[in-house]
Each structure stands twice: as C-alpha cells, then as structure tokens.
C-alpha cells in the first residue's frame, strides 16, 4: 500500500474515520503522519484522496479533458465513486476496470483473490478462480525457491490456460 498523501512512500498507518456519516479510509506513511499530526483529528476526505490516485488521471483524454466513465450496468459515474468511495454494482468492477486496478493496488496487497469461493458460480468464473489459485501458488513457490514445485505448477497453469481458451474466449488480464 502506498501513502495517500505523498503517493511515494509505503503507507504504514491505516486510519478509518466517520465524520457526518461519511467514512474515510486513509493510508499514510510515517513522515506524512508526523506532518499531519498524530491525533488524526483532521478529516481526510476519501474522495479527495482517491481523486489524487493515479487511476482517476487515466480517465483524462489526450487533450486533457475528462472522459466521463459510466458503468454500463447501473449508470454510475466513476466520479461519483471517487467522491464517496462506494461502487454502484458488481458490474462497476468491469466498467471501471482500469482506474479501479490502480485503486485496488493502493489499498490491497495484490490484485488477485485467493481463498474461499461460492459453490454456485458459472464454470468460467470457476476456471478463472482455479487459475488464479495456481498462479498464486507459483508466486509463493518461486519466492521460497522450490524449483521443482514451481516447474510442476507452471505446467499445470499452462494446461489450465489452454483449457480456458478452448472453453471460452480468452478473458483479458
């Protein structure tokens, strides 16, 4: 997680505040925290912070004008999300995929879920989930320098990818 204030250093302090019914989650580095004061009494506007995140800048067109990004499922504007930090529907994750990816990168450890999945999901979702689990395992085994295991996982991933391509059109990364 990167500091929401300076946008360069690693955030080490995580803060949630509710003021006038609005919730703000703030992630800041130690240097910025000191500058802002340790009491955190000032209200950080979540929207303002998100607006500073690189994701929103990507919605700027080449001329520098804002291209308004609208969810095709629920009609929510990306700007509304930037204001209150809440998405309108599950489809927003697809419609706002690019700018959201950098938001997620800032607030989460990775961009890929590992763990429980519902029993009732479409088979394509199932396959994608399985593939992600394998990729995560591979990442770990490389970290642990377990090379035999890594080679085995790489083959398994290749197979899973082929299977995914055969059954459905390949999903964009």
């Amino acid at each position, binding site marked *: 997680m990167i500091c929401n204030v300076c946008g360069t250093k690693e955030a080490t302090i995580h803060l949630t505040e509710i003021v006038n019914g609005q919730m703000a989650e703030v992630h800041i580095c130690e240097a910025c925290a000191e500058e802002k004061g340790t009491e955190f009494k000032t209200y950080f506007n979540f929207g303002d912070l998100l607006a500073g995140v690189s994701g929103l800048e990507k919605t700027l067109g080449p001329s520098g004008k804002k291209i308004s990004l609208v969810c095709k499922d629920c009609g929510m504007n990306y700007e509304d999300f930037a204001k209150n930090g*809440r998405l309108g529907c599950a489809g927003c994750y697809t419609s706002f995929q690019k700018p959201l990816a950098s938001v997620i990168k800032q607030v989460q450890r990775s961009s890929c879920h590992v763990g429980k999945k519902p029993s009732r999901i479409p088979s394509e979702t199932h396959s994608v989930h399985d593939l992600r689990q394998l990729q995560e395992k591979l990442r770990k085994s490389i970290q642990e320098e377990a090379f035999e295991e890594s080679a085995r996982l790489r083959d398994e991933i290749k197979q899973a990818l082929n299977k995914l391509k055969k059954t459905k059109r390949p999903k964009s990364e």
Partner: protein
Amino acid sequence: MSEIDRFVDQPVNWLRATGPESDVVVSSRLRMARNFATYPFLSRLVPAQRDAIIQEAGEAVKRSNFLKNAYFISSTELPELDRQFLLERHLVSRELFLEEGKSAVAITPDEMVSLMVIEEDHLRLQVFQSGLNLVEAWRIADGIDSELEKDLDYAFDGTLGYLTACPTNVGTGLRASCMLHLPSLVLTKQVHKVLQALSKLNLAVRGLYGEGTQASGNFFQFSNQITLGQPEDEIISNLEGVIRQVITHEREARDYLKKKRKAKMEDQIWRALATLKAARMMSSSEAIQLLSLVQVGIDVGVLKGQVTHADLNQLSLLIQPAHLQKMNGKELGSTERDTRRASRIREYFTKVIL
C-alpha cells in the same frame, strides 16, 4: 419489541471472559461481506429491491441450521433507543441505519451471531467469540456462509473474489478483529511503541466502538487491513500471531508494574475503587476509564477474588446510555443517566470493602 427486551437481562456470552487469553483479549469478532449478484449495491438500490433482498435473506436464514432460530428484525420495527441498544451490544453497526430506507438484522438468541441485511454491503455476517478465538469464529462464519450460499447467488469474480461496495473489502470480504485491553502498556507509556511497530504490518488499530472512535479506557481493536490476495486462514493466523506478541508485551508490562511500581499502582487502583464506590454522578467515559483500572487490580492481584473480569465486562456494557434507558423502561436525560450509572456502579461495588 419483546425479542430485544429479552436481551436486556441476558449477559453477553462473548463478554464472559471464558475464552483463551481472556486476561488481555476481551473478544474476537469475524465479519464477512457478501452481495447478491442480481441487485445493485446499496447506493443504487430502489425501495422495492431493498424489500426483495430482505425477503430473500430472510428465507435463506430460515433454511439455515445455524440461523433458523435467529430473531429477524426489520429496521422499521426498531425505535431509536433499540437501535442504540443493539449498537452497544455490537450486534448492529451504525451503517445499518445510516441510510434512509429499510434494512434488517438476524440475531441468534445467544447473541453470538448477527447477520446484517443491507448495510454497506447486502449482507454482513458477524460472529463473536470470547477471548482470542478467531479460528473458531471463522469456522462458524464459514459454515453459515456455506449454508446461505446454497440459496443465494453472490457477486463473485474469478480474479477479484467476492465483490463489495467498497474496494477495501473486495476479495475475501473478511475482517477479523480482536478487542484487547492493554492497561499496563498504556500506564508504562509503551503502547505507542507497540502500535507503531504494528502499523508496519498492514493492520488497523481502532478504539472500543470500532470505526470512527478514539481508543477509550485502554481498549484497542486490532483488525486486518487487507482482504485481497491472502486466503482466509492466513489472514486469521497472521492477525493471531501479531496479537500473541502484543499479549506478551502487555503481560511483561504488567509484571514490571507489579514489581517496580507496586505502591503507585495500588494507589491508583484503590483511588479508582473509592470513586466508583462513592460517586453520585458519572459519565460513560469516566466509568470505563475507572473500571479499566479495576481490571488491572484483578490482574496484578490487588483485588483477589472480590471482582471478576466477566462481571466487569458486563458492568461496562450495562452502564452504556441505551442499556440504562432500556432497563429503566423509558428514555432518560443525560443528567439522569449519569446519576443512574453512578448508582448502578455503587450497587455492584458494595461487596468490595476499601
């Protein structure tokens, strides 16, 4: 509101101080966020969709073995005082009633599980345990979730996992937290050092009533910050690992106080008791602060057998504003509350002889 009135005289199970490490860890809580695939998130819901979600959730609750005996209460049946009462018992969150429009909550009769319907996400499942017991809380939450998903289609993405209204919950949708009582670390002025070290580990630390409040009465809530990229059991074991270290620090600080600052400690504890036994008016925050010192008294052996952690945990809850008013049967002004709070506390401490 007979169902809620049933809770008034019932001690809260997860405050019984029976769980592991309960001299430091008051309680463990696990929260799981889920959304229905077929409805938009909270901010785009129309009233008819709210009704439909509450209906579907209610039916799934009835079919669940874990939840079938739960009280299912709609927000429209809840006057302000009852909302505040449930909030003080941590069974609902402020967010559940924040927006205009209907919401609901299912609460098991033993108050160990609550399922909030139409909070920030469509479903927020909470499981409580006494002491440090996140593993058990996860086992129960996982079981209930698996039952509910038989009937409900959740918003789930192969890459991002469970989709939530706020990207800070996406992935597992899991927030594990523990309430720690760290008076010795506060008294020895070491708590900031510990918290600073912790903040490097992507954990959040908050005050007694969770989001939006300062730590009061030496109570701190520790929770995981990241929900994406780690499986549930790893999130839990990481948090537990850190909490175990904090427990060790707290106990070391306690030993130090016992050995090196015994006279001063005892003075503070007895002064707190004297105030609790004598005061005619007392605010919540003063009471929590003084009761926290009495808890230290138990831990360092000053008050052998006269009071217990379990009793004090319960007392801390019973003197909250909505609890005082529920027990009174009608609303009370703040002066009246302070008077009643003081008298309730005096009553409890009559058995302690100064």
